[in-house]
């Protein structure tokens, strides 16, 4: 450590030195104009630093932050909805492609297999409905056909609800995109 560095530490330490080192510093400052200038300048800088105001943001900073946060959250949920729609559509597309590929590979087998599956499904449904009707007729209260109609209506409404949910999801995503200016 050279002589100047030692005295600079005393100048900028911010605490008053003991009597001995302070005397040495005074002696050095009389002989060294460079250190003298620094020793004279530092208190002035210190005053400037001490009196400088803390800068304040323009009024409404927190409100701007909150509204930006809301915009970000809306954009994020719109992105999620869009992503879900894209994934659902993509999955349906892939399934269709697989089916198309399989049909094209064996054009004769698929109509036969399809018909067989349809007949089996029809049999399954008729057996199921007969069982259900028998069960309903055995029950006391309103007639069986009324309950069967209600069940069919319930199923139809469920499918309609699922369709509506898909449409609402899509419309909501479009509305969010529109709200955020695209």
């Amino acid at each position, binding site marked *: 450590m050279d002589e100047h560095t030692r005295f600079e530490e005393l100048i900028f330490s911010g605490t008053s030195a003991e009597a001995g080192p302070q005397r040495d510093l005074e002696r050095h400052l009389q002989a060294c104009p460079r250190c003298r200038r620094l020793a004279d300048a530092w208190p002035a800088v210190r005053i400037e630093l001490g*009196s400088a105001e803390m800068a*304040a943001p323009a009024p409404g900073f*927190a409100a701007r932050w909150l509204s930006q946060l809301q915009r970000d959250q809306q954009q994020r949920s719109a992105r999620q909805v869009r992503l879900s729609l894209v994934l659902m559509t993509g999955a349906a597309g892939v399934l269709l492609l697989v089916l198309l590929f399989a049909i094209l590979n064996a054009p004769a087998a698929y109509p036969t297999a399809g018909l067989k599956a349809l007949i089996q499904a029809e049999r399954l449904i008729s057996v199921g409905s007969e069982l259900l009707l028998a069960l309903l007729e055995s029950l006391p209260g309103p007639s069986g056909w009324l309950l069967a109609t209600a069940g069919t209506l319930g199923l139809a409404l469920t499918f309609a609800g699922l369709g509506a949910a898909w449409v609402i999801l899509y419309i909501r995503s479009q509305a969010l995109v529109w709200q955020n200016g695209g």
Partner: protein
Amino acid sequence: MQEQESQWLAQAQAGDAQAFGRLVEAYQRPVFNLCYRMLGDPGEAEDAAQETFFKAYRALKRYDPTQRFVNWLLTIASNHCIDRLRRRRLRIVSLDSLPPWNTPRAPESGLESQLLREEQGEVLHRLLGRLSPVDRAAVVMRYWNDLSYEEIAQVLSISVSAVKSRLHRARKSLAQSWVEHEKAVPAGAEGA
């Protein structure tokens, strides 16, 4: 305040954005001041301060309550500003090339005292502009936020001795710049 802060923090950690909004209200000034002193431009400081609070909100679950919340915010703000300054350096823009330093403050100041403070602010701006980003952050935290050496070390992720050495270097550099400023503008000539 401490109790209220803990309550807002708990609510914000549970997903209450309004509670975090109250924390933004409470700490906007120290965060904005650091960003402003670091970057030197009110617009850029606003962006940096807003981004600081977004980062804090997203990382709230990682906040360590043993550290003061404001110091945690200052850590995020200083890292963000240092990154911005590094990117800015790539564009070769120095603080000296920025518009004059007009400290944004509450509107109650009188015109005369505001002019005087603006002059002083400009001098301080030039002096601070010559420091490295980390040295500048240390000076701001020491003289505006009254942080101890230990707290500055924690905020800047450096050792206490490194803080002392950086502050010593910064003080010397500020004093040297002051001497040069005095030579260029003799006392009494300023503002005349």
